[in-house]
């Protein structure tokens, strides 16, 4: 009996966190007639793919999807490699300037990115990097780097150093010990870190909108999504389908990695 309030609380937390996303997906699958019904239908009674067709058939959808994927993956991979090196230096070594370095990384998290739009535009223009996806990749790399370092360092610190040392005593080189012993233990950390780095880059709108000017084939999905509402306006079905498609890669990764990401986040957060 005493558990009933608790269960109710748990269910309402689940409802609150899941409902908005559920409602997006359900709306995307409903025919327009049902979307505009006076009484909302909480299940798609007449599921249809028409809104997805509208979204996918809109100009350049595949291209923008590819651009976003390229830029986001590029940024995440780059920042993972660079951050892993730095995190190793911070978590496993002692050196002068380490404290200042940590402080720098923390402060870098506070950077006012929107304010950098104009300087970044000028720098890109003066170095011939306007209208280039590579410039976006670099910016997103920088946008995710500080956070990736901080998190990976936490994961790394949680792995007992003795494990590495034991491997080295067995004759492995330091690099080999790292690869064989530490890396597998680090995998969940790498995964959750890259997932959230990916979301950050995947989402970015302001720079993508300002730095891709003439080369419209290089636009990314968020820019597409924002112009979508201009073109489709009232068509909430198509808009929700577009939002669903936008969220799709994240949803997929989430479904595949759900358990590991959850435990990874928890481990990383605590042991830091």
């Amino acid at each position: 009996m005493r558990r009933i309030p608790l269960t109710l609380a748990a269910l309402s937390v689940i409802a609150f966190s899941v409902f908005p996303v559920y409602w997006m997906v359900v709306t995307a699958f409903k025919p327009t007639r049902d979307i505009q019904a006076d009484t909302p239908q909480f299940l798609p009674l007449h599921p249809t793919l028409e809104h997805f067709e509208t979204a996918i058939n809109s100009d350049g959808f595949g291209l923008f999807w590819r651009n976003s994927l390229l830029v986001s993956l590029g940024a995440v991979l780059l920042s993972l490699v660079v951050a892993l090196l730095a995190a190793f230096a911070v978590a496993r070594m002692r050196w002068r300037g380490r404290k200042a370095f940590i402080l720098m990384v923390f402060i870098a998290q506070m950077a006012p990115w929107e304010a950098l739009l104009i300087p970044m535009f000028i720098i890109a223009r003066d170095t011939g990097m306007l209208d280039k996806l590579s410039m976006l990749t670099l910016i997103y790399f920088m946008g995710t780097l500080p956070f990736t370092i901080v998190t990976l360092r936490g994961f790394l610190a949680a792995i007992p150093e003795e494990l590495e040392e034991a491997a080295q005593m067995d004759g492995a080189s330091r690099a080999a010990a790292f690869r064989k012993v530490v890396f597998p233990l680090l995998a969940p950390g790498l995964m959750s870190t890259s997932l959230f780095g990916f979301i950050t880059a995947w989402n970015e709108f302001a720079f993508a909108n300002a730095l891709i000017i003439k080369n419209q084939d290089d636009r990314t999905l968020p820019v597409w999504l924002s112009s979508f509402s201009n073109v489709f306006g009232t068509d909430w079905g198509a808009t929700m389908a577009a939002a669903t498609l936008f969220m799709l890669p994240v949803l997929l990764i989430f479904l595949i990695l759900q358990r590991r990401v959850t435990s990874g986040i928890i481990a990383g957060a605590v042991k830091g």
Partner: protein
Amino acid sequence: MVTQAPERPVATAVPPPSRRRRALPALWPYLLVIPTVAGTAYLLFYPLIRSVIISFQHFRTGELIRGGAAFVGLDNYYDALGSAEFWAVVRRTLVWTAINVVLIMVISTLIALMVARLGKKLRLAVLAGLVLTWATPVLAATTIFQWLFQSKLGVVNWLLTSIGFAQFDGYTWFADGTSTFAIMVLLVVWQSVPFAALTLYAGLTTIPGELFEAAKIDGATQKQVFRDVTFPMLRPLFGLITSLEIIWVFKCFAQIWAISQGGPDGATTTLPVYAFQVAQSLHKYDLGSAISTLTVLILLAVLIPHLRRMYKHEGEGR
């Protein structure tokens, strides 16, 4: 970009004590951090410096296009600090940050405590729900919330009307400053709670169970247990999460811009939105840069206690 703050895991704080240090070539650590330092210098600090320089210049559309901006000393700062609007925005930003952070921390703590008491299946379901929310991209989330609160077909108005609040029939949420502000708070809290709750729950699981049992044997109420056992044990974690949430909520831009662009009538204009408006809509890049610089200074001032603690902590010579 870092515009969508409130959704990332974290772990800063203290490195573990490293017991036996092997002698490493002294150069290694520096080589390892070179890419980070170089990247940050060129892609963050250099533009940041350019932005600060702009804030001391007369820099409008003409200067952006033709170059040759003249230095005007502190004029832009006088302009910003002398306008009543700026101070109204500062006040609003502080209120915005306070409301959000308090709500996030209280709700997250409650959820964390609740999850710890749940059975295995329900616990997993709650955790999965939280991670899903956390993983929702900001742009998708803003689109969804606009749809939920749409005046004619929105499910929220339907719900409120059907439980008896007839005045919500066709209610235009985004026409009114207070209700738009409330929706923004709801959205940011919705997106931020998962991170804080998951982290706190993870922290709870590390507290040895004996402590709770001992407290119970002593006849402590649940409230007392929280005050005397849980909170003290988790104090560093609370500190860390609170300061991160402050940074993220304070800097929050994408959500507000996508939904209300700071409106209606400025009701959701916080400092980052204000700086963006001044720079990008009014083309006063100079004044916008000055406001951004001031924004960073204010944020630093708010966080100095935390930064000092962190710096000291890192220093403890282990």
